C-alpha cells in the first residue's frame, strides 16, 4: 500500500492504495465517483475516459499510483456546482447525443479534450477523434452534431462542407 494524493475535480484527496489499483477502481470504488464507467478490459471502449493534467486518458490504462500529484478531471466535475450543464453536456442534451448514457461520460470527456486542442473541428476531425470511444446506441450521428454545436459552429454548415 502506498499513499497517493491528487486533486480530483479541484478537490484534494489522499488515500492509501495498492500498487495494482487502476484509476477506474480508485475513482469508482475508493472515491465512489461512479460516473467513470468500465465497458471493456482491453482499453478499447473509452467509457472510462478522464482528464489527467488536462490530457485525455483512459482511466483503465493508469494505476492510481501513477496519478500521485496529478490534477484529475472526471464527468462529475464538468457541470457547475448548481447543476448547470457545461456547453458540451448541454449540446449532448440538445442534440440527443446520448441514449443509455453508459458511454456518455467518456464521450463528454473526449469531446472536451478535442475542443480544447481544436476549437473548430471539421466533421471528419470529430469522427476521427472519437476513434477510441465506442457508442452502441446512437450511431454517433447525434454525438457528432452535439460536439460540432458545442464548438459554436453552425452544424448544417459544417455538414455541407
Amino acid at each position, binding site marked *: 500500500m502506498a499513499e497517493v494524493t491528487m486533486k480530483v475535480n479541484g478537490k484534494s484527496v489522499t488515500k492509501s492504495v495498492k500498487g495494482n489499483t487502476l484509476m477506474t477502481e480508485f475513482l*469508482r470504488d475508493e472515491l465512489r*465517483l*461512479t*460516473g*467513470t*464507467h*468500465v*465497458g*471493456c*478490459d*482491453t482499453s*478499447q*471502449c473509452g*467509457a472510462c475516459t478522464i482528464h489527467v493534467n488536462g490530457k485525455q486518458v483512459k482511466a483503465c490504462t493508469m494505476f492510481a499510483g501513477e496519478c500521485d500529484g496529478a490534477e484529475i478531471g*472526471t*464527468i*462529475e466535475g*464538468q*457541470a457547475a456546482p448548481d*447543476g448547470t*450543464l457545461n456547453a458540451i*453536456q448541454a449540446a*449532448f*442534451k*440538445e442534440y*440527443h447525443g*446520448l*441514449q*443509455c*448514457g*453508459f*458511454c*456518455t*461520460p467518456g464521450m*463528454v470527456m473526449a469531446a472536451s479534450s478535442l475542443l480544447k486542442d481544436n476549437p473548430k473541428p471539421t*466533421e*471528419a476531425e*470529430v*469522427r*476521427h477523434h*472519437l*476513434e477510441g*470511444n*465506442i*457508442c*452502441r*446506441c*446512437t*450511431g*454517433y*450521428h*447525434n*454525438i*457528432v*452534431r452535439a460536439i460540432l454545436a458545442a464548438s459554436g459552429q453552425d*452544424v448544417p454548415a*459544417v*455538414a*455541407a462542407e
Partner: protein
Amino acid sequence: MPKDHGIGASPKRREDARFLTGAGQYTDDINIHNQAYVHFLRSDVAHGKITNIDTTEAAEMPGVVRIFTGADFEGIGGLPCGWEITDKNGDPMKEPAHPVLAQGKVRHVGDPIAAVVADSLEEARNAAEAIVVDIEDLPAVVNMKAALTSDSALVHDDLSDNLCYDWQFGSDTEVVEKAFSEAAHVTTLELVNNRLIANPMEPRVAVGDYARANDESTLYTTSQNPHVIRLLMGAFVLGIPEHKLRVVAPDVGGGFGTKIFHYAEEAFCTFAARQINRAVKWTSTRSEAFMSDAHGRDHVTKIELALDADNNFTALRTDTYANMGAYLSTFSTSVPTWLHGTLMAGNYRTPAVQVNVKAVFTNTVPVDAYRGAGRPEATYSLERVIDKAARELGVDPIKLRRQNFITQFPYATPVAVEYDTGDYVATMDKMEELMDLGNFDARRKESEAKGKLRGLGINCFIEACGIAPSNLVGQLGARAGLYDAATVRVNATGSISVMVGAHSHGQGHETVFPQVVAEMLGIDDSLIDIVHGDTSKIPFGMGTYGSRSLAVCGSAMVRATEKIINKAKKIAAHLLEASEADIELKDGQFSVAGTDKSVAWGDVTLAAYVPHNYPLEDIEPGLEETAFYDPANFTYPAGAYACEVELDPETGEVKIEKFVSSDDFGNVINPMIVEGQVHGGIAQGIGQALLENASYDENGQLLSASYMDYAMPRADDLPMMANYVVDHSCQTPCTHNPLGVKGCGEAGAIGSPPTVVNAVIDALHSGGHKVEHIDMPVTPSRVWAAMQA
C-alpha cells in the same frame, strides 16, 4: 410551428441530466454493505467431460467465503426456455437441461464450471486459479450441417442427435412445388446471416441480496424485463415465490435483446446470497461478456424465388439452419421460427411461401434475440434474392419490388400474419426523392473518375412489432403472455407517478411516456414521472424488446389514464353539481359544457384524497388506476432504405457515401427519439453488413472475443451527416392500438444490412465483376477475393 409539448413534440430528455453528470445509477454502481464478490471459473474448451474438480486448495485461500460447483445445484431447476416449438412431425422440440453451473460436461467456451465467492474480487480471482479441473476433451460440434450428420459428437448425451427441431411453416409443399414447376424463372441464393454479439456498452452485472429476518431476496440486475426475470428465476430455477423476491433493473446501459434473457449469473448471485446470508456481486468483464452473453443471428439459408413470365412473384421457399448454441436461451427457439418465418412474405403479394428451419445444437455460446430477432434474417434472405432476381432478369430492382408490393390492407399473408395497414409505395416514393436517384449516374461517373466503383442498394422491409397477442402466442408455444401493464397514481396535489412494465435502457421512456399522459389530461408534463425497473414498485410488466414499449405498455398507460379521466369526471361533476355527461376536460380544467363553471385538475385530485365534499356513496376516495393491455395484433412498421457505396477496387474497401431510410412507424410521439433509435439501428445494421462477426474456429474457440477482434462500428465507419437522412414522414397509423403507433427500435437494424450488401454487389457489377453474393461482413478481404474469383 412544431409542437413544444405533448404528442408529436420533441422535448429534450429528462434522463439526460443524470447521465451527463455521472449521476446515473447503473447496477455496478450499487454496493450492499458487506457484500461478497463472485468470480466464475469458465471452461476454456468447447466440449469436454468434467472428470474431476478439486477445490480443496482454493477453499483455503485468503478471503474465500465459499466455492460452488455444479454439485451444489443438483435438484435445483435449470434455466428455462420460454417458448416451445413443435417439430413438423408433431413432436415437441428437444429441450436439454441448462444447469446454473456445469454438471458433468462443459458445452461451450465460457460455460461456468465453478464460482468462487470471496471478500474481494481479487481474492475470488486468485482462488479460482487454484481450482483444479480435469476435463477430458470431446470433439467440438461447431458447423451446423456437420452437427446433423450421424457421426457427429453429441452436445447433449441424453438426446438422440443435435437437432433441436425441424420446423415447417406456411404454404403446403404441393402448392409450393407446383408454383416452382410452373415458374418462368427461379432465382436461388445461398447465404449466411453472420453471428453477432449485441455488445451493449454496459456489461451485465448481478447483485444478489438476502434478508434472512423476513426471508426476502433482492436481485439487482442489468435486465430489460425485471418481472420476467422474477418469474423465470423464482418459479423455475430457485423456487422463491414472487412476494419474497424483488428484482430491480435500475439504469441499464443498453440491451439490444441480450439483456432480456435469464442468465445463470443472476440465479447464482440470488442463490448464493441466501446460502451465505450475505450480498453477492458479479460484474462481467467484457471478455466474459463475449463468451456468456447470448449471441445473435447465425443462420445459414438457401432461398428460392419463383416468378412468372411477367415478373410477378409466385412462390418463395427457404431452407435455414439456425444455430441454438449449446443450450436453449430464454427466447432462442422463437427467433428463427415465429419471429422469422412469419415475416418471410415481406412487403410482397407472393401467394405461396414456405419456410423450413432446422435448429441445431453446437458447442458455442447460446444464440437468442438480438435487435430485430429473426426479422433481419428474413429481410436479408428475401431482399437479397429479389435483388439477384432483378439482375438475372435485367429489370430495375425498384420496379420489380414495386410491381409485387402489397397495396391493399388489411392483408393476410401465406405465413399467418395479417398486416393491418401500410403504404409501401409511399415509403418507396419518399426514399427515391430523398436519394436524388436522378443524379445517381452523375455520382457514379464522379466515383469512376477517382478510380472507384459506385453501387446503389435498395431494400424494403416489414417487421412484426408490439409483441404480442397472448392467446395467439400461447397457441404458438409461448410459455408467457405478452401483454403489459401500467398504473397511473395521481397524488393529492395533482402530480402523477406512472408505474410501467416497460423498461427504459436508452429509449427515453421517462420523457416520452409523460408526453402522452400530459396530452390526455391537458396538464404540464413536469407533473408526471415514470417509475420503472423495480418489481416492488410497479404492478407487473413483460418489459422492453421487440419494439413493444409504446405499442403495448403505452397502450396500457392510455387505458389507465382513460380510467383516471372517467373517475375524475365523476368527482368534478359532484363538485360542479352537474351531470357527469356534461363534464368536459380541456387544458387541465373540468368544465360544464356550455357554461363558464369549471374546476381545475388540482381541485379534483385534492377532493379525491380529502373527500369532505365527495360522492362517497358512489365512488371510492383516491385516484389510482391500473390497466393491463393485451394487443389485438402485431404492429407492422415498414420502410424503404437505400444506400450508395464507393468501393475501392485496389483494396476492396467499401465506404458508405449516402444513406436514406424512409420508415412508416405509424404515429410518432417524439420525433427526436424516433430518429435516434433509427440512427442506432442503422449503425448496428451497417456493423453487421461491413464489420461484425462472431467467429469460431473448428475447435470451438471464439476467435473474436474482445474489441480488438470483434469490429464494433466507430464514428468514422458511418455515413457523414450531409448524405444521411432518416425520414419517418410516411405514417399509416396502427389500426388496433389507441396511440396508432407501431414501434421504431429495430427498423434500422432490419432494413440496413441487405441495403448495404445490395449496393456492394451493384458496385462490383458496374466494374464488370460478375459477383452474385458476398457473405457478411463484407470486409475488404472478402470483396477482394470475390473480385479475383
